[in-house]
């Protein structure tokens, strides 16, 4: 039973645009065990959301999986048809969307939108059982059950996000992908919601992938953290390793940009430049134009994403800035 719930191998996803091929996800590999929480962190446009959409195969028309495997519960879903994917979606993997504001259809009652998912995945349930299930879900996420007959616009931002979480939990998935689940909320609501999500996860034994640009959010909820840069995984390890012993210079810069309020004073490391244009990514290591430690080898060859200590991987020629 050590088989991972989700195993992504060498996943490469491209968008075909008028200006050419955009490599949004490049050679990404990671795995997720049952009940584990993985955080994906990175700047806007680094491919975090693209990874999420690829795993559910919800890509827009111009996006396609170029290479790699997505193994869910032992089966590779890359060759799956739309029809086969429908069972995987929500049944095995559900998702909490970035903009919960807009993830609910404004013209239907919130409860009915959850029932819609139940009708699809648990057709044997009667209407009464479905109502009962929605009531339970609402209670679980801390919403009054009477609210299920309300419309999304009658909810506050936090309530809507809770409703979206209830919807994600509805069909008992093995895993939930939460894409910036709390970005639109204020810090207080964000904090309580994150704590609650962590509780459901432990309670229901689900695996989670949290996606955020906010290192603080990721630190709070993740067991393991993957740092993404320009469509690639730069580093991956336990939360402890990533925050206290980063290997990749990008991770080092990212961590120092979120200074601790309790630790000793340190200087902020400023990262010059901008994330690269993915239509025309830099050769070699995609971080080299902004890396303070870059050498010739960084410009020419892509570093291997390899293990530096058990479970702690990074793709860098100069781990921790060492010059070899």
């Amino acid at each position, binding site marked *: 039973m050590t088989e991972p719930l989700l195993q992504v191998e060498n996943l490469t996803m491209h968008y075909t645009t008028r200006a050419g091929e955009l490599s949004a996800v490049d050679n990404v590999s990671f795995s997720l065990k049952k009940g584990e929480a993985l955080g994906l962190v990175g700047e806007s446009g680094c491919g975090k959301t693209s990874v999420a959409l690829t795993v559910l195969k*919800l890509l827009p028309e111009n996006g396609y999986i170029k290479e790699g495997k997505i193994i869910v519960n032992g089966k590779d879903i890359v060759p799956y048809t739309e029809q086969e994917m429908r069972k995987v979606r929500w049944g095995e993997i559900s998702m909490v969307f970035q903009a919960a504001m807009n*993830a609910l259809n404004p013209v239907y009652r919130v409860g009915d939108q959850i029932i819609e998912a139940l009708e699809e995945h648990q057709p044997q349930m009667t209407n009464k059982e479905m109502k009962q299930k929605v009531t339970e879900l609402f209670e679980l996420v801390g919403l009054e059950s009477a609210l299920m007959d309300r419309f999304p616009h009658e909810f506050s931002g936090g309530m809507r996000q809770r409703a979206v979480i209830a919807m994600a939990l509805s069909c008992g998935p093995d895993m939930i992908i939460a894409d910036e689940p709390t970005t639109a909320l204020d810090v207080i609501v964000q904090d309580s919601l994150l704590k609650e999500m962590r509780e459901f996860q432990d309670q229901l034994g689900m695996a989670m992938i949290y996606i955020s640009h906010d290192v603080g959010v990721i630190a709070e909820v993740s067991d393991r953290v993957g740092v993404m840069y320009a469509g690639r995984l730069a580093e991956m390890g336990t939360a402890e390793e990533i925050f206290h012993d980063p290997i990749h210079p990008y991770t080092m810069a990212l961590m120092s940009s979120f200074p601790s309020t309790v630790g000793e004073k340190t200087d902020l490391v400023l990262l010059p430049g901008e994330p690269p244009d993915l239509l025309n990514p830099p050769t070699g290591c995609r971080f080299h134009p902004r890396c303070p430690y870059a050498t010739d080898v960084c410009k020419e060859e892509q570093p291997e994403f390899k293990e530096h200590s058990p479970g702690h991987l990074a793709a860098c020629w100069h781990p921790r800035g060492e010059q070899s």
Partner: protein
Amino acid sequence: MRGYLFKRLAQIVITFFLFLSAIFFLVDAQPGDYGNVFYSNPRLTPEQRQQLKANLGLDQPTWVRYTKWMSSFLQGDLGISFSNYPRPVIDVIAERAPRTIVLFMSATVVSFYFGFMAGKLLAWNRGGLVEYASTIGGVSLYTVFTPWFALIMIWVFAFRLGWFPIGKFIEPTAWIGAPTEVNDVFIRLIFTALIASVLLFTLLVSVGRLNTNQRRPATWIGMAVIAAGALIYWLNTGLGVYALDILWHLTLPIITLALISFAGSMLLTRNSMLETLREDYVLAARAKGISEKAIRDRHAARNAMLPVVTSFVFSLAFAIDGGVITETVFSWPGMGRTLLTAANAEDIPMVLGALVFTGTLALTAHLVADILYAYLDPRIRYA
């Protein structure tokens, strides 16, 4: 909602009053009056002519006639139609308005139904020959000169192929010895349609309470029961043949009008749906694993429907405006043709009556659009 309705009704009353005044003065400003037919008699002496004018009330200044007309209007009296002497105007309207409403309502419903379906499919499967063909075809029909197209339709389908009657409301020879009047059958037809639609609506709403797998059979059974009920009613009264005659006469005008106008709703639906397809809730629906058809119909098209409904209600009022032309081409004895005949005969009370009808309809349509909108979009709350 109630407060809003009151406010809206008050607005409608004011608008209606302004509309009445406007049509009265506009019609009054036209040269000639309904006395012309009589004055032109060369044997009348100037005194007799004057007397006639006084009898008709035409020697009074405009504003006196205006107050008179307005006060009798408020008492429900629109005067007597000269071209249908001695029938009161209101009587003529009561007879012909249902024909106009039925013709244009059915044509608009058919046009919007197909326009909406076509637009939905075009937005869903973009690109390709079908999109070009239907867009070009639809827009060509939309811009074609209506009377010409209607005549071509009559020529092809009624005259050459003989599938449909050439114009008119009924086939008079078939009605010899009919147990009742044309209008009676027609009113019964309208009521059948009305009751059937109310039942259908109730059915569709109540079916939603059932479990998923019971919905489809329940819908079919319910629809079959409604259809059977209507059938039994018409067989029982023995008027079915006559009703069919009216329906047969209705078909070609409806097809023609629908062909001319469906492109409007088709393109509107297509654009509106291309926007809703980009919404996050459509992506979320897809992530929920629900079927493509349900995503298309329940999420994308349902929300794309909102602007289409508004345009539907307004175009209904517009279509009836255009009735003057269509009804004349199809010899359809409705309000449009009545307006034309009355205008030619300088039958001013009838002209005013016909215009009052159009105005009432347009104002009602706007009110219905507002209410329908609130029903379709829960975000809209009128206060």
